[in-house]
């Protein structure tokens, strides 16, 4: 019987396999950031161990970093200590680091692909659940905890029980204006936040094949939001086109050898998946969340559900609690929901295509008077690229704030936070209670919906802007 893509990559990385024990996997790339690494480096120090492969390790600062006044010391002393601890650790253990202010600084999952340190068939880990992003290249990439960070630093390997496999077949033509974010939000609403637990999933089908690399990263990024161990997409010409000529891509004869190998990285026709899910892309419409987990979503044209509609007790209780937290009423139209803040950015939607899509919507328009909009490029290079294209001017002229790169308002760890009760449309990945700041209320949306919402002052899509601009002027 044939093998799936994930089985091929897994098998190519087994250092040791013994019955009754997890496989010991070799790790090709270990990405490190300031939040989940200090205790790991400390563990190495206490046990007198070093970093086995600093040349397969890369560190950056993203979670705690401010997006304003980045030339000044970080104001919050605890955040500053965490960032400075990473700098000290990187220096002591010989790890390459891209610090705040460096041209290659940015969200860890944006800079890995940008430098082409992420390549097909690799194993990539990071003390961060959105490591699944790198699976867009056909890499096996997953988030790990701090104990595992220490394990990889010390041994460049990780003991891992072999997960099950799942295929997500997404066929059909995605309607114009819809994005990868709508696809993945609709998928999570269908399968639930636990739907992927214990599985490495492979996204495939005609709708996936047509997506750009950046769109594929958006889909794989949110694999963890439905519980999957990792999400992968088989590499193809789109992948090779993205990689070629970038900083760490192979060159000359090595490029040819690499591509020859990469072409083998697809599930065999007779491969068996432990589970399969189908989604029809042609039936999708803009998708947004109403609740406090990413599975609590509906089409933008829909309404806030009544908890009584759910058959499972746990779902009913969760919906009741979510509506209370979100201050929403059953039956309310999603389009009626007014927002205070719009956040465009994060490892989900902070790449150049995301900024372009949103800028196209917002160009020549003004954001609604009482709305603040933060536009936060995912990396310093995305910021420079956007500025070279004049996107910063588009956003600023519309009344939005143009910021420096980082995780920003995706999580309440740096100065960019929601106030209690504040409501946001956010292109990030988690609408958990308090995720964007204590008491903050989050609706997950795509970049074009974020842009249209900023102009309208309530949830809406670019189609709603026709004829609606005047009332907000």
């Amino acid at each position, binding site marked *: 019987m044939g093998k799936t893509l994930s089985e091929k990559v897994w098998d190519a990385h087994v250092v040791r396999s013994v019955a009754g024990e997890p496989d010991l996997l070799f790790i090709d790339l270990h990405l490190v950031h300031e939040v989940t690494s200090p205790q790991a480096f400390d563990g190495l120090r206490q046990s007198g161990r070093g970093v086995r492969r600093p040349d397969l390790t*890369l560190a950056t600062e993203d979670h705690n970093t401010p997006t304003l006044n980045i030339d000044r010391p970080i104001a919050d002393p605890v955040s500053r*200590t965490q960032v400075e601890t990473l700098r000290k650790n990187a220096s002591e253990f010989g790890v390459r680091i891209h610090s705040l202010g460096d*041209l290659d600084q940015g969200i860890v999952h944006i800079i890995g692909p940008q430098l082409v340190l992420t390549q097909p068939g*690799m194993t990539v880990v990071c003390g961060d*659940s959105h490591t699944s992003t790198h699976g867009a290249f056909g890499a096996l990439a997953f988030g790990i*905890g701090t104990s595992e960070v220490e394990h990889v630093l010390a041994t460049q390997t990780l003991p891992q029980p072999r997960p099950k496999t799942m295929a997500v077949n997404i066929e059909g033509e995605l309607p114009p204006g819809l994005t990868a974010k709508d696809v993945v939000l609709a998928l999570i609403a269908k399968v639930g936040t636990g739907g992927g637990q214990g599985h490495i999933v492979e996204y495939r089908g005609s709708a996936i094949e047509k997506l750009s690399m950046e769109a594929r990263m958006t889909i794989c990024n949110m694999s963890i939001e439905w*519980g999957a161990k990792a999400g992968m997409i088989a590499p193809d010409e789109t992948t090779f086109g993205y990689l070629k000529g970038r900083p*760490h891509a192979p060159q000359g004869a090595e490029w040819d050898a690499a591509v020859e190998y990469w072409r083998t990285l697809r599930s065999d026709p007779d491969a068996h998946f432990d589970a399969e899910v189908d989604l029809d892309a042609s039936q999708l419409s803009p998708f947004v969340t109403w609740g406090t987990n990413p599975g609590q979503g509906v089409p933008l044209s829909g309404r806030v559900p009544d908890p009584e509609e759910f058959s499972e007790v746990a779902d009913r209780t969760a919906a009741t609690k979510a509506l209370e937290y979100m201050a929403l009423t059953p039956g309310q139209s999603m389009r009626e929901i007014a927002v205070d803040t719009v956040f465009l950015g994060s490892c989900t939607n902070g790449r150049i295509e995301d900024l372009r899509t949103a800028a196209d919507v917002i160009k020549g328009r003004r954001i609604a008077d009482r709305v603040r909009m933060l536009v936060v490029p995912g990396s310093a290079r995305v910021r420079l690229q956007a500025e070279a294209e004049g996107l910063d001017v588009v956003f600023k002229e519309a009344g939005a704030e143009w910021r420096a790169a980082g995780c920003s308002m995706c999580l309440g760890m740096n100065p960019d936070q929601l106030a209690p009760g504040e409501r946001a449309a956010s292109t990030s990945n988690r609408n958990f209670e308090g*995720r964007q700041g204590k008491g903050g209320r989050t609706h997950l949306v795509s970049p074009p919906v974020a842009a249209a919402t900023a102009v309208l002052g309530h949830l809406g899509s670019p189609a709603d802007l026709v004829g609606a601009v005047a009332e907000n002027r």
Partner: protein
Amino acid sequence: MEKFLTHTGTALPLRRSNVDTDQIIPAVYLKRVVKTGFEDGLFAAWRADPNFVLNQPQYAGATILIPGPDFGTGSSREHAVWALQNYGFRVVIGSRFGDIFRGNSGKSGLLIAQVDQKIVEELWDFVESQPGTALNVDLAERTVTAPGFQAGFEIDDYTRWRLMEGLDDIGLTLRHVEDIDAFEAKRPEFLPKTLPAKVAGGS
């Protein structure tokens, strides 16, 4: 790591599903660079409510947490495990868990005992009707027992063995360092290295 064989303690019912790691400990509490002191951040947002189960006196001193399904989903933060341990929890009994949280717990010595949701419901009823009654969790037997109550739980064999022996994963792996050496020797040349650094536009 300390060996885990059995644990006897009182339990706390957390009747909520989808308790993600942001709820277990919000990001703002993750800034410490040590593994201690995270108990202040445990369920921080909910603890402001005096009726929240953690604030109810009949559950004071509980060491066994019984949450609803999909506990520990979301962020990979191991701080969630440390916060539970720093607060005093030794065991979490539930029906479904986030994969990364489950892995982190095994590394840090927090026992994740998986049971059917039906057992969770029974335990909730039992604990609420008799708060302060100790449960016994036996890892060797994989059982949870209390007066008039017994149920088996699931845990994978390898994690169970490591917990019972109190073994450090890194030490176990380094016993096979020659296998790692051999693997490294045959990795293809085209695979990228972070050093020396190559950046767009030359370095």
